[in-house]
C-alpha cells in the first residue's frame, strides 16, 4: 500500500473524527421520542377550547421513551386557565395538570409516565378554567398528520401540535440502537436491523479503509510510491 497516501488519509480522517465526529456524536441533548403532529411549517392555527370543554387528538403512537409531552397554548392574552391533560391507550393511562397562570404562547412540557411498549393512544386537553384557551395546531395541508383533532367530539380543521420527548439528554452514540431500529420502519421487509448494523460498520470503517487502500494502490501502481518489491522504473 502507498504509505504516504494512506498516512495522509488516516491523519486527515483522524483529525476529522477527533475534532468533529466525536464532539457531535457524544453531545447529550434531549431528543424526541415520537412526534404525532409537528408544529406547522407554513401556517399556525389555533384550536380554541372553551371553559369546560376538551380537545382530543388521536390516534398516535407513544413509545417507551415518551416521557414528556410538549405542546403550546395561547391564552388569548389573558391569564392562562388550568388544563388537565389525559393520555389513554389500551392498558395505559397517564397525564397531568398545567396549573393556571402560565404565559401566553408559552411552550408546555408535561412529564408523563411512558408506556411499557409502543401503544396507540389518544391525548385530551380539558379546559378547567374560566377563560378559553387555544391549542397551537398545524393548519396547512402540508402538515396533515394521521391524527384527527376534535373538540367535544366534533372534528376540527388543523392538527393539534403534539410531541413527546425523552426524559434525559442522550448522545447519538447512546441512541444508535434506537436509530437503527427506527430506520427500518416503512421499509421493505428484508430491510431489518440485521442489514443496518453491518452497513453501519461498512460505512464507518469500510469506507475510510477502502478509500485508503484505493488511493494507496493507485499511487503504488503509478510508481509514485515504492512498492514492497521496490520502486518501479
Amino acid at each position, binding site marked *: 500500500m502507498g504509505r504516504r497516501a494512506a*498516512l495522509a488519509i488516516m491523519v486527515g480522517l483522524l483529525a476529522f473524527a477527533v475534532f468533529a465526529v466525536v464532539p457531535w456524536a457524544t453531545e447529550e441533548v434531549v431528543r424526541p421520542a415520537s412526534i404525532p403532529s409537528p408544529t406547522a*411549517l407554513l401556517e399556525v392555527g389555533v384550536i380554541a377550547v372553551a371553559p369546560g370543554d376538551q380537545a382530543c387528538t388521536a390516534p398516535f403512537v407513544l413509545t417507551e421513551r415518551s416521557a414528556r409531552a410538549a405542546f403550546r397554548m395561547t391564552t388569548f392574552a389573558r391569564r392562562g386557565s388550568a388544563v388537565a391533560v389525559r393520555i389513554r391507550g389500551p392498558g395505559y393511562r397517564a397525564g397531568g395538570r398545567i396549573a393556571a397562570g402560565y404565559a401566553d404562547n408559552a411552550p408546555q412540557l408535561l412529564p408523563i409516565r411512558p408506556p411499557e411498549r409502543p401503544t396507540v393512544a389518544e391525548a385530551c386537553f380539558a379546559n378547567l378554567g374560566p377563560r378559553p384557551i387555544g391549542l397551537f395546531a398545524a393548519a396547512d395541508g402540508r402538515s396533515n398528520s394521521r391524527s384527527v383533532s376534535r373538540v367535544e367530539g366534533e372534528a376540527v380543521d388543523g392538527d393539534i401540535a403534539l410531541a413527546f420527548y425523552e426524559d434525559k439528554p442522550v448522545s447519538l452514540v447512546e441512541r444508535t440502537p434506537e436509530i437503527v431500529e427506527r430506520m427500518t420502519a416503512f421499509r421493505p421487509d428484508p430491510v431489518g436491523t440485521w442489514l443496518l448494523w453491518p452497513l453501519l460498520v461498512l460505512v464507518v470503517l469500510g469506507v475510510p479503509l477502502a478509500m485508503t487502500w484505493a488511493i494507496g494502490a493507485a499511487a503504488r501502481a503509478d510508481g509514485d510510491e515504492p512498492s514492497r518489491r521496490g520502486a518501479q522504473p
Partner: protein
Amino acid sequence: MRPLPCPRPLAALLAVATVLALAWMLALPALQGPDEGGHYSYTEKMVEQGTIVWTAVAGRPAGDQDRSTEHTIAAEWSGLEPLRANLAARPFGTELDERLWQRREAMLPAGARADADFTSTFRNPPLYYAYQAVPYSVGLLGGFFDRTFLMRLANLPLLLGAIVLTWLLAGRLLGPRVLPRTVATSFVALQPQMLQLTATINADIMLVLLSTAVLLLAVVVVQDGATKGRVLGLTALVAAAALAQPRGVALLVPVVIALALVVVRRRGIGRATVALGATGGLALTLAAVGVASAVGRGTPNQFVSYMWQFYLPRLDFMTPTIGPQDYGVREVLVERLWGAFAQLEIALPAGVADVVWGVTLAFTALLIALAIARRDRVRARGPEIAIALLALLALAVMLHVVAYRAMLDDPTDPVIAGRYILPLVALVGVGVALLVDAVPRALRPAAAGGAVAALVAVQFTGLGLTVERFYG
C-alpha cells in the same frame, strides 16, 4: 470470452459508492428527497393508468389531485407528509406505526393508485420514468414502501455507471496513470449531493450518467475521429439526455463543438476561418440569449444585471436583482451543492460552508493559474478543453435563461439548485485530479490522500446530518 478487467482502485470506488448509496437510501426516509413524491407520482400514473404523462404530448390533465389516494394515505400514516422540510417533525418509527398504516391501507378502494391528476413533474420528458416503471412494476408484488425503495435501488446502476464513465473520461483527459484517475473518480463517488440524488427518485441522476457518457464520447471523437457509430452514439445520447431531463439539451453544445473540431481537422480548415466561425457562433449565441431574455416581460438589461449580481457584488447604478437577493453563486456552489439535503432543510454548518467556499475559490484560482503556467499543454489539449468549457458554459447559460424566465413569473424561487451542476461533476473531478497531479511527485500521494480525506469528511458530514435530522 474473458471479462473486462476492472482496475482495483475502481473496484474499490464502486464498492464504496454502493455502500454509501445504500446508507443514504436508509438515512433518507421515503419521499424526503427533492421533489421525490412528484417523481414517484409520474411513474405511478404512467403504469397504473397506462397513459402518456408528459404534458408536452398528453397536455395538462383536468383536476388538481397531485398524487394518488394510496400515496396520500401512505405519506400521512407514516408521518412522512408533515416531515417534508419541517425540522420539527420526525418520521414514525415503530412496528405499531406500520401496522396502523397497513390497516388503513387495507381499507383503500380499488383504483387508489390510479387517481392522481397532475403534478408539476409531469412536464418532464418520460425516459427516466419509463426506466423506473420496471422497479415500480416489480414492487406491485409488495406495498407502497416496497415500490419507493425498489425505485431508489434502481438508481444505483446509474450512479455506478457514472463512476465507471468518469474513470474512462479521466483516462482520456489525464492519461493512463492510475492515481489521477482514482482522485477524479473519487470525487464522483464521494460527492454527498450525488449520493443523496442516488437515494432519491429523481431524473437528475440519469442525466448525470448520460451527460458523463456524452462528454466521454465527445472526447473520444476529438481524439480518435468521428466514425459513423460514434456520431450516431452521440446523437442517441444527447437525445436520451434531453428525454431524461430537459436540461440535457445543453449537451448539444459540446457535441456540436466536438463534431465541428473533427471537421476542421479533417478538412484542414485554417485558423482564420475557425476564428471567424467561433466569433459567429458566439455572436449567434449572444443574440439567442438576448432574444430569449427579452421575450414577454423580460429585458436584456435586467437579464445582464441578474447575471452580474449572481456572480459579483451589485454595482451602485444597478437596481436590485430579480429574485431572492441573497441567492448567488455561493449559494448554488456551496449551500445547495454540498448541503441542502432532503428538501433543502438540512444545511451545512456555517463554518463548514465557509471552508467549502474558500476551497471552491482556491480550486478555481489554482486551476486558472495551472492553465497559464502550462499553456503549452493546454494548447495541445485545446479540443478537449473546449468541450469541457463549452459544456460548462452552455449549462450555465441555459440555467440562467430558464431561471430568469421563471423568476419573471415567480421571483421567490431562484430555480437553480446545486444538483443541476452535477451533470458535469466528472469534469470537476478531473479538475481536482489535475491540481493534485501538479504537486511535486514526492508530495503527490499525500496531496491525493488529503483531497480524498476531505471528500470522505464532507460525505460523512452530509450523511451524519441527515441521520441526525430524521432519527436523532
